[in-house]
């Protein structure tokens, strides 16, 4: 939606600005009285953090909309994003002319606090009225560059909002007005770092991570102070010389350039005071011969004490990865029974095609299972429950046929777990590609290999029993002229017995969470591109989801 400077539009804008003014003061008034506390369950009247709560389950206790009445779900509003800087609050260090590019897809999960939704795409943050979808404020960042592939969203603590930019700035805005408080550079984009993470607020700490794997650069997670944005601690995802884990690398240079980007927000157990997150793939990406060893702590689920930045335990889901299968996917916290006794657990449907269940107090491995059938890259599961590296399936000069492809069996879109069904939901792909080693130097660099995609033997939405790792139900996704479509998708389960997701064919769907039967759909024409979320406002339940450049809100007809 580009606002042109003709008379009509100017008139519209004036009106809108007036509206914004009154909305802003209303919002700030409310914020003074309502401090949002993130807990172990998603609140009904807000969605205060990336996953709604700290558990990563994306399960809402709201059941106004349920399996019985979901047929009556109707569009409440649509909000199409505006990436023009005209009319926006503008900040940033880059040139006045924005880089060319198509409209970005909404990958952030909007936060909802006091009737306002806060969400982002690269270089832009929006506050919109949750009742109407109309603009409250828009902040536009003048970028210096960096990969604009996506932005996961914002974090909010009291009156301040935090987000990251593709050119690696950590920015704080006033929640009420969108006015910038400060920004700090956290990584250098000339080294091909870029940032997509949604800041995670834990107590008085703001946890952020960096991304990028075009060059062989080291990954790190940081805690920043919410007032000034200064560094509190930094945790390197690969060890330095002499540190624990250094023995899993051949030398200091390899580990100091070993990647492991923590690019997805994690989860948190307040009782244990542990932050759980997955790390990215090692570098060079598809060539492992210059980094023999397991390459800790890449492709690893890490439990970190957020007060100190010290690691409590780790579990590596892909030792010595050579296929770009990071373990950044959400580590979901599950409290339940396993082998007859109650456990605090963490589960991950991982990009390498396996499901992992761990004890989240100790990191003890409980279960590994395959979640797609086509995978052909491992020699089998080892004694620690890890899929073992098979050198024969590394990229080679004449080509190696690998399943899944480098995008993986699943990926970043937020999965969901329903404690009512005991099922973990996520989208899967059974793709094949040929991986060609292109850099045969003894010191390969960057990706070091090319990939040619072949096709998929079937993508599906799956529900697996967390206790057994077995598929309870599987729903094939849409078919197109080239075969199976769709795959990883953002999901939301509710106490109403529903699972919201897509069908790979451009429909937003409410599935019966127990059986996978579709009960309702809306033909958006574009697959949903973020995690759906929900809240109650004025006693009415809204379901909000992004698809491409638009945010859609649905509610029961009144």
């Amino acid at each position, binding site marked *: 939606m580009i606002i042109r400077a003709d008379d009509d539009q100017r008139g519209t804008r004036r009106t809108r600005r007036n509206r914004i003014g009154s909305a802003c003061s209303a919002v700030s008034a409310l914020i003074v009285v309502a401090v949002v506390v993130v807990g172990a369950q998603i609140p009904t009247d807000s969605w205060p953090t990336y996953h709604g709560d700290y558990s990563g389950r994306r399960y809402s206790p709201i059941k106004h909309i349920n399996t019985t009445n979901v047929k009556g779900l109707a569009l409440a509003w649509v909000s199409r994003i505006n990436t023009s800087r005209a009319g926006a609050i503008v900040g940033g260090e880059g040139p006045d002319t924005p880089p060319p590019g*198509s409209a970005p897809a909404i990958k952030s999960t909007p936060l909802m606090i006091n009737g306002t939704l806060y969400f982002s795409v690269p270089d832009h943050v929006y506050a919109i009225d949750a009742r109407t979808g109309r603009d409250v404020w828009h902040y536009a960042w003048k970028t210096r560059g960096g990969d604009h*592939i996506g932005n996961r969203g914002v974090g909010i603590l009291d009156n301040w909002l935090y987000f990251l930019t593709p050119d690696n700035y950590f920015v704080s805005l006033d929640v009420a007005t969108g006015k910038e408080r400060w920004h700090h550079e956290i990584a250098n984009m000339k*080294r091909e770092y870029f940032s997509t993470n949604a800041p995670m607020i834990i107590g008085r700490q703001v946890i952020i991570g960096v991304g990028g794997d075009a060059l062989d650069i080291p990954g790190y997670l940081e805690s920043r102070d919410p007032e000034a944005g200064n560094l509190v601690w930094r945790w390197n995802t690969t060890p330095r010389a002499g540190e624990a884990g250094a023995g899993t690398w051949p030398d200091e240079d390899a580990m100091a350039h070993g990647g492991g*980007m923590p690019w997805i927000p994690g989860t948190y157990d307040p009782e244990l005071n542990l932050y759980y997150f997955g790390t990215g793939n090692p570098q060079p990406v598809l060539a492992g011969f210059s980094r023999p060893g397991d390459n800790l702590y890449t492709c690893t689920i890490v439990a970190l004490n957020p007060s100190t930045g010290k690691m409590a335990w780790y579990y590596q889901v892909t030792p010595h990865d050579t296929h770009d299968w990071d373990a950044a996917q959400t580590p979901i916290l599950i409290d339940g029974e396993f082998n007859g006794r109650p456990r605090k657990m963490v589960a991950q449907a991982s990009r390498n095609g396996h499901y992992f269940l761990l004890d989240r107090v100790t990191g003890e491995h409980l279960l590994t299972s395959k979640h797609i059938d086509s995978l052909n890259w491992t020699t089998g599961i080892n004694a620690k429950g890890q899929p073992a590296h098979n050198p024969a399936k590394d990229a080679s000069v004449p*080509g190696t046929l690998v399943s899944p492809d480098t995008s993986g069996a699943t990926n970043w879109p937020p999965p969901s777990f329903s404690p009512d069904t005991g099922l973990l939901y996520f989208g899967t792909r059974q793709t094949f590609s040929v991986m060609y080693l292109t850099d045969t130097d003894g*010191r390969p660099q960057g990706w070091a290999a090319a990939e040619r995609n*072949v096709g998929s033997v079937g993508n599906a939405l799956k529900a697996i029993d967390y206790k057994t790792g077995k598929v309870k139900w599987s729903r094939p996704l*849409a078919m197109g002229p080239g075969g199976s479509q769709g795959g990883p998708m953002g999901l939301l389960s509710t106490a109403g017995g529903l699972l919201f997701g897509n069908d790979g064919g451009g429909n937003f769907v409410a599935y019966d969470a127990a059986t996978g039967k579709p009960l309702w759909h809306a033909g958006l024409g574009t697959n949903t591109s973020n995690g759906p979320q929900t809240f109650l406002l004025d006693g009415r339940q809204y379901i909000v989801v992004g698809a491409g450049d638009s945010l859609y809100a649905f509610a029961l007809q009144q």
Partner: protein
Amino acid sequence: MKNGWNDNGQRRNRGTRRAISVSASSACSALIVVAVAALGAQQQALTPQSDPVAVERGQTLLVDQCGFCHGANARGASGGPDLTRSALVQTDEDGKQLGEFLAAGRPDKGMPKFDLSRTQASDVAAFLHSAIYLNSNRRLYKILDIVVGDAKAGEAYFSGAGRCSSCHSPAGDLKGVGAKYEPTSLQGRLLLPRGRERVPGSQQMPLYADPTGLKVTVTLPSGESVSGGLVRLTDFEVTLYDAGAGSPRRSAEGAEPGSPRRSAEGAEGGRLRTWLRNGETPKVVVSDPLQAHLDHLTKWTDTDMHNMTAYLASLK
């Protein structure tokens, strides 16, 4: 262009997934302007070096003066670290920081100082930045010689275990195939020959109108049956391309978000038809003309694939 979901910096699969996926070949062959727009998210922090002469001068200087310790390709050697991975080099601006560093050296680590002119430092930096750019941009990586298999073994596989000869023949449809395609395309088509190779300058046929696209037959409660190219099948709708319908083609904009707006060559005269689905009504049967290839994906060994590639490449 594959439109997948991994987006942690990996240079692929970006952005919004459309209901109708654009076939790989058509996206690749689109006008540069369109391709840039579609790949907008792929912009990198780094840009290519604009002066190849400076890069060449820098390379000569580097080999002469730095190569002994840092390797002729600057990736490091026993005497010195990899310069292309160096944070100082990666963040250098036109030799400024590098020049300052070289003027001082790092004697405590055995790195002597080098007296380079401003231009020389800029040239060395140009070479290093160029090497770093090429390392970082995997779309520019060159696939090496992939025809290394045993053509004889490939031929045996063709008529034996591969059962390829049940549909194909070297004297028939595969005649001259080794001359028609470069090896990587040939290997890709061996695995799954979906879509036609793009002929430069011609308009791309939508995959649903292509013989290699999936096919669908829709049988209505009345008993009427319609067959055509599958455009989309979901739990809620089925859309097909009826090539022989003869009636005016339905407006693509109105009916099919993401579908080509211009009527494509070969698609003239056909039309898109959609039925909403209610459970098993209407009856929908999908078939894939390439099912044998798809089924074979789980059966290939890499050796068989290499041998078959060599065999097909020999069919000049």
